[in-house]
């Protein structure tokens, strides 16, 4: 390749990276909603629990574009024994010249948006999403009778998640007897101005609040493809928005949640497999430096440290992370 690799001086302790997304930008604010509160009972039946998460991180810049790395993690829990498969990191060089090709590779090209309008960082997100969907597809196809946990929500119709793709994923999972559950760490869905996760605070755990009318909500092409719940799984734990495959009956959805309760370790009310998947896919600062070194060595790039403009301008007040 030759040339230079420009890296930022601002390398924090943990870079973290873009990890899927918690909840696709769905600005829902329904006026009427029907909610059913159900108390949960743990079901200890040894159902395997599998979680998938993907992270991406910007490694640096070249004279032609950006360099990023993507890594995915699959973590499973089978009768209390945990295992994992980490896939990557895969480095990508995204340039103005190759971004169309990249987006087409992702096959989620949004007809309304020309590739030329996409920022390079958006292409990074698309690639990350592509890998996430690929891992999800692999698990949906190869697992039977399992609970599959995703990070985020079951929202479709976004540029990187067409309705057809998500529908297909859910169908395959269902055919193999799997239940897909998506946990959102943060939700923007509000009811009467309040976050839906606030609705469950006062109820004793473990409990689940079913929000029936959200499934039918649509905004443009964006659709919620699952039954939306708010769950609080353990005492002292946090409430989360939980989307369960809309193709399975409510009772089966609640049973899947009860199986998580019975077969999974919960940390602050969050499933351990999903937590581990996130931890294993996330990039630490030392990994970013290692990948920078790998790329510089393999492609004969000279690493140049880009001074932080914010730091230069604002000194100690220029603290926001720069792309």
């Amino acid at each position, binding site marked *: 390749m030759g040339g230079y690799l420009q890296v930022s001086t601002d*390398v*924090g*302790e*943990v*870079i973290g990276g873009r990890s899927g997304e918690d909840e696709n930008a769905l600005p829902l604010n329904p006026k009427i909603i029907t909610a059913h509160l159900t108390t949960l009972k743990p079901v200890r039946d040894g159902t395997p629990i599998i979680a998938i998460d993907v992270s991406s991180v910007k490694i640096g810049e070249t004279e032609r574009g950006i360099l990023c*790395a993507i890594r995915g993690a699959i*973590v499973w829990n089978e009768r209390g*024994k*945990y*295992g*994992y*498969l*980490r*896939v*990557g*990191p*895969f*480095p990508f060089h995204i340039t103005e010249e190759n971004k169309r090709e990249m987006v087409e590779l992702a096959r989620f090209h949004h007809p309304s948006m020309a590739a030329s309008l996409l920022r390079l960082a958006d292409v990074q997100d698309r690639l990350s999403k592509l890998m996430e969907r690929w891992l999800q597809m692999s698990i949906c196809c190869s697992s039977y009778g399992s609970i599959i946990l995703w990070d985020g929500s079951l929202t479709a119709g976004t540029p990187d998640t067409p309705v057809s793709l998500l529908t297909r994923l859910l169908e395959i999972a269902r055919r193999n007897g799997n239940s897909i559950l998506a946990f959102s760490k943060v939700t923007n869905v509000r009811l009467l101005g309040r976050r839906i996760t606030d609705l469950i605070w006062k109820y004793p755990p473990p409990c689940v609040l079913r929000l029936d009318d959200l499934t039918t909500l649509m905004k443009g092409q964006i659709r919620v493809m699952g039954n939306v719940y708010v769950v609080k799984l353990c005492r002292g734990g946090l409430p989360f928005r939980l989307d369960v495959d809309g193709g399975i009956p409510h009772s089966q959805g609640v049973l899947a949640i009860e199986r998580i309760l019975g077969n999974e370790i919960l940390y602050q009310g969050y499933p351990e497999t999903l937590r*581990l998947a996130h*931890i*294993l896919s996330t990039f*630490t*600062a*030392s*990994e*970013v*430096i*290692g*990948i920078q*070194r*790998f790329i510089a*060595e*393999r492609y004969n790039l000279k690493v140049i440290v880009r001074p932080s403009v914010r730091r230069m301008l604002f000194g100690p007040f220029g603290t926001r992370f720069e792309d």
Partner: protein
Amino acid sequence: MRLYKKVGDTVQILSFPDEEVEKGSYLIIEDEKTGRGLITQVIDVQFANVPGIMEELLRDSAADEFMNGRDFDPFNAASHILYIQDSRILISKIRGMVEGGRLRVNNSWLPSRTRSTIRRLPIDSLIKLVRIERKFPINLGETRESSQLVIDARALDGKLNIITGKKGTGKSHLSKLLILGLVEHGATVVVLDLNGEYTSLGLKADGSKNRYHSKIHILKPGVNFKVALSRVNLPVIMRILTYSLDLPGISSREFRRIWRFLKERGSLSLHSLGEAIMGWKCNQHVKDALYSRYYALLHSNLFTDNLAESIDFGVFLRRMKGGGAVIIDLSDASPLDRKIIVEYILGKVQELLAQWKLRALFLFAEEAHLYLRETYWDDIITRMRHFGLFTTFITNQPNTIRENIYRQADNIFLFNFVNEHDLEIISRAARVDVDTVVSIVRDLPPHHCLLLGDVVKDFPIVVKVRDLDIQTMGETRLFFTKEKVEAGKGLIASL
């Protein structure tokens, strides 16, 4: 390796796992543009403060503990990540500067961080650079690079040396090596052997004679080392009475009179001395004091009236023309007798040196605090070395040697110490900075020694002291012998 930081005389160098550098290694930071090089010595190796490393370790430990997993990493990026995580910071001390291939004293020069290259400086190259001569070679052993470290015996000549380290690290072994090295080059050596460790210097490990055998003389006080009182000069006997036996001033005056009286009559002997004290007209207390000292001299068995069984220590030393070592075996001597014997030897040696009957003498004193008087320490570092007495102290208790001795020592041979208090004491040595001593000495394996001072031209070097084919006598006598341990194993098996 890359130059990272300089603070005072310390530079920090970033090093990667495939660059093998350990404590004590020398590095040269070369700046081609200026034609200069900075010689530094690694005194500590630390992990580089890589950002995110704590999170990485936490994640890995969690994954290792209760998860089975694998990584699909087709680009093998993990190896680069591990490479970064294992990077190290070498804390190094600036030892000198090279310009045009010659050593210069200019530690203020700072090489370029971006332009300079860093490489390991082999000890052999360092020795050539700093011009450590080998005209009178003593091979001490191997450096960590497996090259032989040979010092020049002249670096011990006229010098005050200290060999110290905790028990069982090889101090006596090194001193034996130095003694034989000096003997090899024709030097006269006197060893004050507290535990009889040096008595086999003339024998190989298998008990046969080695090439030094004829030059090693073992003197055991009371056995083959007795002195005729008539051959002892008054100043020597007065030193013994004053410093070893604490004879008060008035009593000393009376003793002098008695001695001169007997000398003038030509009847100076142990027997006549005893009788003279008994019959001397003086204060009863003085008489008692003199008589008690007389008995101490008598029971030391060092003195005799029988000329046939006595030796003239001065003549004995002067006969060793081609060099040799006299081992004074003090292993069976009581503390008081030890003091009398040592005081006699030092008095005699001083007399011989002052009269130029001896040119110079190397004295090896093990655990000297057990038999040397307080004032003698100052004598050694001030007066005695001008007479030609060059002392090497050997001790495992560094606090028994006073700070001013450390400060004026020309060579220090340091073995391992881990005790903070001991490290603090030895770090007072003026030949090197505290950090070097504390950091390197703490991690020295047994038989490895840090050399400081003239022998290495003030470039501290770690050496693994070589084996000697001599019979070992310094081993501690144990109750649980090998045979008993083997028998014990059988007993355990039967249970």
